[in-house]
């Protein structure tokens, strides 16, 4: 019985983990190229969720088609915030960039609150369910999972095959060296920030398929913290590492929840969160390059 429940929860965790992973790829891309930790990460996820909600409730647009739209909106936001703020802070101490990205996040939250109000909202996209033996999975989640894997593969191909993708990888390795080789580093910074934000906003669309009525201007905070844990699991500067980190994190989160629920006199949900931060600290201390990459 308990094993069946555990297996069911682990499958759910793996599917959710794919979304987490995709959401964190944007964070890792931005950190890898610009060496900036985007503390406003969750707010961009929230923007994606509201874009989905708005398209679905006013125009009846299928959330799947909201993904490219959200990606483009995200890229526009990324270019805007890069040229208006981040460009001037690239060489500034961490304090400035951390606080600037935090302020951007707060700004987005407040603007969305002004437009949509602060109550919880949701939408109902009925596409049926599928039974997997140990657990029942709504089809929406399956679509979201497939979508996030597709996006991850596209990003991988883009990095490997295109000129801009190669230039980006060279900037991650050594921006001085890339500059010497004729890479327009300023443009790569802007493009990476825009793509990173685009990915995060797009992941907000996928995430709405997991939280039917949890769309709210302040929903992002928890995801920022989760994204940090995931990014560190994957090595912080590596987008693919982040994707696998997401899968691992989904498994840990759902698996440990099942086990903690067996303990008497505790709150399993909070302990799950506690565990994830213990993992964060352990990885930072023992293997700051992430689980996948060798030192």
């Amino acid at each position, binding site marked *: 019985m308990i094993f069946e429940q555990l297996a069911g929860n682990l499958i759910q965790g793996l599917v959710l983990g794919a979304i987490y992973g995709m959401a964190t790829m944007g964070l890792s891309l931005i950190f890898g190229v610009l060496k900036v930790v985007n503390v406003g990460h969750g707010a961009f996820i929230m923007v994606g969720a509201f874009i989905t909600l708005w398209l679905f409730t006013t125009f009846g647009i299928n959330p799947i088609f909201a993904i490219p739209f959200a990606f483009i909106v995200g890229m526009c936001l990324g270019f805007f915030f890069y040229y208006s*703020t981040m460009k001037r802070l690239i060489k500034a101490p961490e*304090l400035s960039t951390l606080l600037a990205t935090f302020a*951007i996040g707060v700004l987005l939250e*407040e603007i969305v609150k002004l437009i949509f109000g602060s109550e919880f909202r949701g939408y109902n996209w009925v596409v049926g369910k599928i039974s997997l033996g140990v657990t029942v999975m709504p089809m929406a989640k399956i679509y979201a999972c497939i979508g996030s894997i597709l996006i991850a593969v596209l990003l991988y191909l883009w990095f490997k095959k295109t000129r801009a993708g190669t230039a980006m990888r060279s900037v991650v390795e050594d921006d001085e060296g890339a500059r010497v080789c004729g890479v327009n580093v300023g443009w790569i910074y802007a493009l990476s920030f825009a793509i990173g934000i685009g990915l995060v906003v797009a992941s907000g669309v996928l995430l709405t398929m997991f939280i039917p009525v949890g769309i709210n201007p302040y929903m992002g905070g928890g995801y920022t913290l989760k994204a940090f844990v995931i990014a560190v699991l994957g090595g912080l500067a590596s987008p693919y590492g982040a994707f696998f980190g997401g899968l691992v994190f989904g498994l840990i989160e759902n698996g440990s929840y099942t086990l903690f629920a067996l303990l008497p006199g505790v709150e399993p949900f*909070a302990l799950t969160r506690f565990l994830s*931060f213990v993992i964060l*600290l352990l990885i930072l201390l023992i293997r700051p390059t992430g689980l996948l990459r060798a030192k």
Partner: protein
Amino acid sequence: MKKHIAKYYPLVPVFAAYLVMFFIGKNMSGMWQLMGMLAFYCALGQAFNIFLGMTGYVDFGYVAFLGVGTYGMAIGITRFASFEGLGIGIIAIGFLLALAMATLLSLAVGAVALRLRGAYFAIATIGVNEGFRYLIEGARIWNGSEGIIFMADMNQAFGREMASALSTFWADVMVFIIAALAAVVTIYYMRSKIGYALTAIREDEDAAKVMGINVTKYKIIAFITSASFAGLIGASSWAIKTPYVFPPEVFEIHYTIEAIIIVLLGGAGTLLGPVVGGLIYGLSKYWLAVILPGFQLLIFAPLIIIIIVAFPEGVIGLVKARVKGTKYKIIIE
């Protein structure tokens, strides 16, 4: 001897500011609450500045120390309320507990997180703050997520009248004293070997190490000092003033952000900066809440971005550059 005292002249404007705030609050009706809030922000900035301003490390989990300080006072009052004859000594016990808990936590956090640098340090400290909160909630330590409500214990220990005087008046007085103490410690550090070592670390940690500075030692000194003041602020301004404590409230990351804004606004690593930053931040927050309720954050967020981009040295940083070489330079630090 005269020169020895002259080192500490920059304390004059700081103390003057606190005295003026205290007397405005005391003598003008209806101002005490506002002045108490301003004192809280100044004290928060002053305490945080010892670590953030002097080392350049960004501790995103700073509020955790205020949180455990609040718990320290709460536990002190609830455990000792039934003892007869302790009277106001219970408050002293509470402060000692708060101090001990904040110091212990900062030792543990410092031993882990101070091995990391830059963004990794910031992420680790966020992890500590959230992890500690969820440990309290998840393992039901100190009543878990139900928190501790100790209004009744305060009434029992001090009597109703004294308890209400404590939370409406004396808590703020304590915050003023803590703020002043933090300023004294700041100038003492600045004018001693500790300050020079921390400046060297802030500018270039590797170079400081090569020059034979024990970087870990000085970083931990700054970290623990800053954290213990945070514990005291939590114990007075949060625990005594509002006699309850809930984990989601006392570990709320927004307080850390407020502290960072105050330090940055006034000028990181300066003595007068946190006072100026605290006053500007507290007054504008209060004023915006009056004229545009609900829109404070919408106005603050772009303001913060502008300050970071345009005036990264803060108000006192700018003033310091202006008074260089004039006779005022002795009192501006």
